[in-house]
């Protein structure tokens, strides 16, 4: 095995380290974001935010003085 292989291993190791850590960070961030949004309280809140507001109909009594 020639001395060139040391450089080859170094280059492949550095690349693997850089890429693997970046991929892992992206994946963990994705899982955290997904978990946070799918928490039951937030989901319930999102549903309630989209509900149409209730319209209360009240009977207006005619004013006796008029």
């Amino acid at each position: 095995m020639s001395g060139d292989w040391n450089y080859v291993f170094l280059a492949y190791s550095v690349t693997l380290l850089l890429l693997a850590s970046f991929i892992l960070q992206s994946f963990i961030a994705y899982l955290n974001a997904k978990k946070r949004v799918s928490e039951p309280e937030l989901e319930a809140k999102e549903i309630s935010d989209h509900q149409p507001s209730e319209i209360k109909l009240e009977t207006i009594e005619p004013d006796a003085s008029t």
Partner: protein
Amino acid sequence: MKWIAYLANPDRFSRFNRYALPLCVLSAIFLTSIGLGWGLFYAPADYLQGDAARILFIHVPSAWLSLFIYIGVTLSAVIFWVWRHNLADIAAQEMALIGTVFTLISLVTGAIWGKPSWGVYWVWDIRLVSQLLLLMIYLGILMLRQSQTDAAAAARFVAMLALAGLINIFIVKYSVEIWNSQHQGPSVITSEGSKIHASMLWPLMVTAFGFHFIFFSLLLTRMQTQLLNRRWSRLLTPQEKL
């Protein structure tokens, strides 16, 4: 332009992502492992550079990607500037970060290859310097985007910087043809066909496709993360945010 408008809707993008992401991840794993395994163990050593030439199976695809991603950043920034598609803003931010990583990989692996081939890790050659400048531009875009709270203003600055930086992309690409450079000239795609023997060209191309799928997988994952984070922050009341 139709597909850009179609995917600009976050819900549609999430639905598209459900199918596209697994496909990209599988293609990335399959192509990269085949290409790198082929390049490391089956491709012959170069008659001049010896085994050090195997570094080029990661250096060249990373360098290609750094240029390809930069064009993506510029397009996304301009799309957000003109049409105000929020997803284009997210894409520009995430592509800038991924582009930084691939530019760094191309510079580091290039330096490691330089030692056995040229005798030094670094020379002040136009190709190397313009690639270093590309890394600086990527970092500049990231910092500029982070420094502004107003997304519209940030997008305008980022689009302007990205458009100005396009000149550097042409310098990186054509530097070895225009100037007298120590870096080798184009050899994969030339007007007379490829100058590389098929036994080395095939693993290089397979790895290059694999790296592109790694990029798409990362981009889709990170864009989806940003969308989820924005949705979460929209749902919180100001008191909860504190």
